[in-house]
């Protein structure tokens, strides 16, 4: 699985209230409209700027806070190709994979806004085409690779009717 796009860079501790703010919760039944507010308090232009395949790049503890699966789903709705962070809060990480949104850990400290990136999940590599170097990404546990390859947990269950993860 290879994904290419530009980096949108954020800092540490991007919590779920930053990813999708509380005051928009009543729009949740219309995902397209709801997703327009993704990352709004950090970057009001994000939903307008982001192109299909682009990456959300962040520091430590991305996604801390709520278990609401809207957080990865609004990013997916905007066709974000993946989230790359130095570290993830565990509920968000699991939700992202379940929603079919690649979430990988790597040392993002050198990535600049606008860098052209290519993520190769099979090889576990992140190529920074703009800066001309390659990073390793932390491998996902096999169960998560399986779910991601199927396109998410719902797709996995549609296919198998149960967990086929071992």
């Amino acid at each position, binding site marked *: 699985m290879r994904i290419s796009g530009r980096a949108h860079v954020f800092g540490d501790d991007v919590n779920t*209230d930053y990813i999708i703010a*509380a005051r928009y919760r009543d729009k949740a039944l219309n995902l397209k409209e709801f997703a327009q507010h993704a990352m709004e308090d950090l970057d009001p232009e994000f939903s307008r700027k982001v192109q299909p395949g682009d990456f959300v790049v962040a520091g430590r503890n991305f996604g801390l806070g709520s*278990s609401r*699966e*809207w957080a990865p789903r609004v990013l997916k709705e905007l066709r974000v190709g993946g989230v790359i962070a130095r570290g993830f809060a565990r509920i968000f990480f699991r939700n992202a994979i379940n929603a079919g949104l690649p979430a990988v850990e790597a040392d993002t400290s050198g990535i600049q806004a606008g860098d052209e990136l290519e993520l190769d999940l099979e090889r576990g590599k992140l190529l920074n085409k703009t800066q001309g170097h390659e990073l390793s990404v932390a491998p996902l546990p096999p169960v998560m690779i399986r779910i991601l390859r199927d396109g998410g947990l719902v797709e996995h269950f*549609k296919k198998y009717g149960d967990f086929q*993860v071992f």
Partner: protein
Amino acid sequence: MGKTIAEKILSAKSGRDAKAGDIVLAQLDFVYGVDSIGSLNIQLFKEMGRGRVFDPARCAFVMDHMAPAHNASYARMQQIVREFCQEQGIRVYDVGEGISHPVLIEHGHFGPGDLVVGTDSHTCTNGAVNVFSTGVGSSDWAAAMVSGKMWFRVPETVRFELRGRLPRGTYSKDLVLYLVGRMGADGLTYQSAELGGEAVESMSVEARFTISNMAIEMGAKVGLMRADAKVREWFAGRSGRPLRPVEPDPDARYARVVEVDVSRLEPQVAKPHRVDNVGPLSEVEGTPIHQAFIGTCTNGRLEDLREAAAILRGRRVREGVRLIVNPASREALVEGMKDGTIQTLIEAGALLNPPGCGMCPGITGGIPADGENVISASNRNFKGRMGNPNASIYLASPASVAASALEGRIADPRRYL
């Protein structure tokens, strides 16, 4: 080699001899959802196309985040949940019953040694009574509702030895704020917090819920405690089932042991805009506040309301300050009405809201204005958390919130005791 509480529960529920780091597929004892995310849960369950849930008796929904709904969109989200539960024969605790975490355990739906998941990050609250209980998202919920199972990576455990007893005017909320500040928001990512020692043993079960509740704020998967005599007594009359507590082995292997002497702890505050931005209340004493909140799954139980009432009795909230109270459950409200606690709070000037999450997740129940400071007994103070990114939230114990409401500024509760 001995096992931690987390290793033992996940071993029992997966039928394997599981150790930290293993991936297991485990049988769930209970699966719950809440109104604010319920519509997504149900949409994904229907997309999986399986029809009936695995066992309606092991499921419930609680309407707590929008209690009651204040616009048609939120009402529709709740309607979706009610319709689904009716079709499936699943119990609904509707608006006014209270917050999922206290309500479900109070009604005896699960107990010590059980494995429970809920679509709210504070599902870890139940760890205080020896339940492996953790927050999950809608896809995991939907798969659980189909299969009755979930896969887990067995977490390593950080053991907290909490020594001594909390001094007067300092509560379990101050202790957990201190721990979150010390460990950091990602201090226990992917790990289980196992908490014990004299400080835990000497506090009430209600006080222990506050600590397990905020395990997630350290990044922990669960916040587990032993089921001692106090826990067994708490369950008496609540659940018809025999209790099956799980003890950690004396030779269990811990990733880390953190020792804390609580006997000199002062009241603590989490300052804007991070839960781990913790320091002694004395550092921010005198900061003006406009709104004060007592409630939530962290600190809305009867004992919390009583702690606030002890400070407010015979006194009045400062003019210009809004003190808002949301009891965590109908039980807390009713008992508080019987013993005069609610009367005391109202006579002091509190506004009484229905049992539910209230302003904590920023949907309803008291949104602050631009530039306002809120002092709150809740669990998160991220920017915009209470519905306005231009307000600031300080987290504290119910007693500190009450004292601050009296003065109109952050105040030390010990002066009022």
